[in-house]
């Protein structure tokens, strides 16, 4: 699975201060999530869509992302229009389609896409390390920031290890099926990953101690708000406030 697929790029959206990105995404997402007017939520799409256009993101992976998100929404469309009590607008054999149900399903669909597009436009266009670094500037507890750093750093290492182990299984003719042998083999694979990672974490701790780790992450790079950061922050906040007024 591809990670950070939208992070490469040199548009002004990519270069925005990550603290601004995190804050405006949070504000926008909450305002949209709490809104109950389909039309207002539809208007909210303007911000993420224009940001994505400015960021010149690849269209194909974007559609794949949206497809996955809307898969779950589709599940709701199978239920909501038929089960939500309200005014009946259509009868389909034993099923009745209610106006309220359609309205609710539509609201959820637009909301979900708007928030996800905003997350892709803002958080997707930064690397995880940049975002985590920004979190440490936003007063997120130090230990939690460390956890994000280490976890993301070692996901890549452990994925490699997983591929190595699963290749070794394939070479020996392992074919996954629904039986005890498959489950036991996968369990030992996971168990082996856990044991190796546990040992690895002990080595990491020793290495950190050897280098005089004093429970602090020294941040060498400091962000500086430039005029266009302020401009984007203010206009996005104003836009979110506009949506909030019509909540």
């Amino acid at each position, binding site marked *: *699975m591809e990670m*950070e697929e939208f992070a490469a790029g040199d548009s002004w959206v990519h270069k925005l201060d990550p603290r601004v990105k995190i804050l405006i995404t*949070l504000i926008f*997402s909450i305002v*949209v*999530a*709490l809104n109950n007017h389909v039309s207002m939520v539809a208007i909210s799409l303007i911000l993420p869509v224009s940001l994505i256009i400015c960021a010149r993101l690849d269209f194909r992976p974007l559609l794949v*992302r949206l497809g*996955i*998100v809307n898969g*779950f929404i589709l599940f*709701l469309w*199978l*239920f*909501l229009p038929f*089960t*939500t009590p309200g005014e009946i607008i259509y009868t389909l054999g034993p099923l009745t389609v209610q106006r309220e149900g359609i309205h*609710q399903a539509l*609201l*959820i*669909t*637009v909301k*979900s896409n*708007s*928030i*996800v597009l905003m*997350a*892709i436009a803002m*958080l*997707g266009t930064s690397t995880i390390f940049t975002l985590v670094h920004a979190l440490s500037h936003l007063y997120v*507890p130090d230990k*939690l920031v*460390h*956890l994000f*750093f*280490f*976890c993301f750093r*070692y*996901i890549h290492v*452990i994925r490699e290890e*997983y591929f190595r182990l699963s290749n070794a299984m394939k070479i020996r003719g392992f074919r*996954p099926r*629904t039986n005890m042998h*498959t*489950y036991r083999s*996968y*369990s*030992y694979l*996971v*168990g*082996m*990953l*856990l*044991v190796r*990672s*546990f040992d*690895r*974490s002990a080595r*990491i*701790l020793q290495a950190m101690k050897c280098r005089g780790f004093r429970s602090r992450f020294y941040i060498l790079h400091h962000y500086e708000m430039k005029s266009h950061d302020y401009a984007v922050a203010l206009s996005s906040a104003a836009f979110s406030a506009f949506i909030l007024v019509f909540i």
Partner: protein
Amino acid sequence: MHISEGVLTAPELGIGAVFTVAGLALGLRRMDYEKLPEVAVLSSVFFVASLIHIPIGPSAAHLILNGLCGALLGWPAFLAIFVGLALQAVLFNFGGITTLGVNTVIMAFPAVAAGFLCRHFVKSSSSSVRYVFEFIAGAGAILLSGLLVALFIVLALGQSMEAAARLVIAAHIPVMIAEGVITVFVVEFIRKVRPEML
């Protein structure tokens, strides 16, 4: 198990956020810097494990292993799960930012509860007692998570979603059994290979 963006309303999102902040605070207090690399690297393992698909009959499911996570880490499992979900939300748009609190509650509280159970009984010398409780920890964590998903969906969308909620739980029954079996195998494997991890 993720609830996507846009489905829940203010009360559920608020409840999720409050409980998650409380759980994180507790987890952070229980984890000192000595333990940090272990929690971090094991949360990477659980992140990678969630990309593994196991066959269940004609279909397949990805591993969740939140019960196992709780068994290995205790309260800090809350942190590991939160970090994993946050990364999934940003990297793949699974779950979401506004629903991060709710999704953490859904996955992490069952993990910690199952963990307590498993850590207590794993010391038993009778292998059948161990197998039973390891299975309950693995399967029970999924059951609890499924029930919480159903609860949040019904709270947000009303009584009329009961049918859908039942379907969510029913769909999780095969996953529960698979996760229970795998949890037994993994815990027994670790017990043999690296008992100090438990």
